């Protein structure tokens, strides 16, 4: 056995996992070669030091920190459950026979470092004519972070339809556009997505402060019919959240 081979086997030799034939070859080599004996001893010294390294103490508030993050998470999970509940009983528009578009609102909660940690989908309905196409926003970036989760509109929804009255629209006063709403909330539209080759907007992403989210929903409800559970976003949260609104044509 040469030095190179011996050095390669040192680690396994020290751990005692070499087959006896090889182990004895290493043993013999070390006994004859001062360099390899030195390498062997150094390696043992370093391993021993590593074995004895002191534990590092975590911060005193470690458990509290985990809990604070978990708290946020539990809160959001409850929030997600409440959001999905109404989506299941949403009345399919095509069955309602109303010329309208379904609007899916994506709520990205807990944005950190520009990345959404959680994603929630709300379903609502809105008349298509409420969005002013001649809005000033001309950005055409098409880049979708997440695809909408399919929303169940099965049998149960159809059964509900029989007993559901179409909701009356709000009074005759002129409805604001989505752009107006977002402007009034000091939010900003950060992305608009058009149907390929047309000027029909199929999605928009807006950024607003979390504490304005409730108001946004109320305003959206004024624009059209909205069926959603009330949302609990911390009222004093100054954190910005992203809301993605996707228009889906479901009428004939």
């Amino acid at each position, binding site marked *: 056995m040469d030095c190179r081979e011996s050095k390669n086997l*040192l680690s396994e030799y020290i751990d005692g996992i070499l087959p006896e034939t090889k182990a004895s070859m290493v043993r013999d080599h070390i006994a004859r070669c001062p360099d390899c004996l030195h390498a062997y001893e*150094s390696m043992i010294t*370093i391993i021993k*030091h590593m074995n004895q390294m*002191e534990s*590092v*103490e975590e911060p005193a508030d470690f*458990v509290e920190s985990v*809990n604070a993050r978990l708290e946020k998470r539990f809160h959001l999970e409850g929030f997600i459950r409440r959001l999905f509940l109404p989506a299941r009983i949403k009345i399919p528009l095509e069955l309602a026979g109303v010329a309208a578009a379904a609007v899916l609102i994506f709520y990205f909660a807990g944005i950190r470092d520009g990345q959404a940690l959680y994603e929630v989908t709300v379903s609502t309905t809105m008349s298509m004519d409420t969005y002013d196409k001649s809005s000033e926003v001309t950005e055409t970036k098409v880049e979708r972070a997440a695809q909408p989760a399919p929303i169940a509109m099965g049998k149960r929804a159809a059964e509900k339809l029989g007993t559901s009255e179409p909701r009356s629209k709000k009074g005759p006063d002129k409805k604001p556009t989505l752009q107006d709403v977002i402007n009034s909330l000091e939010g900003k539209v950060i992305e608009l997505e058009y149907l390929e080759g047309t000027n029909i907007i199929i999605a928009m992403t807006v950024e607003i402060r979390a504490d304005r989210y409730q108001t946004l929903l109320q305003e959206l409800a004024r624009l059209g019919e909205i069926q959603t559970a009330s949302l609990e976003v911390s009222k004093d949260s100054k954190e910005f959240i992203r809301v993605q609104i996707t228009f889906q044509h479901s009428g004939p």
Partner: protein
Amino acid sequence: MHKQRDTQNNIELESIRLAKSFLADDRNAFNKLILLHKRSVFNLCYRFLGDYDDADDCAQEVFIKVSRSLKSFRFESSFSTWLYRITVNTCKNRLNSLEYRLKSRRVRIDAARHMDNESKQIDIEDKSPSPATELIRKEIDRLIQGAINALPAKQKLVVVLRDIEGKSYEEIVEITGFKLGTVKSKLSRARQQLKEALEGKI
């Protein structure tokens, strides 16, 4: 040695009990689970990432992942191994993130603080090491950590698990998902590199 094995078994049994309680909606059980494992998770993160604040954030993330994926944990395998696997993956993701790579590496000198050496051997005669011994020891720890930081990720992982955490080869295979041959070769290379970096210094 037997005593240590027994302690490990007890921790394992207690972890399983707490995990089950947590799944039955006992939030307090989860806190106890954190208390039981925070030190080892934190240390693995610290040894692997080489930065105190990153280790803190990463270790917190580990427990959040645990709370989320405990439902899918099959109680047939070892809880500790499962926890280590989550820790290792979280650390790997952290190391791979661009943000982390751009950040300059540094080692906190003041990070190696004392702990209650419950699971360690207690040497009664040498219970209060002299300040000088203590200082030398800290310096050695710092040098070793610096050398570990310079290792490639896989070597780092294997050597930390083997030589600091005292895991067996089989456990390392289970935790990392590497083949046994890979564990052996990475460990051998890591130890050689550490030897070269530290020879004459400690």
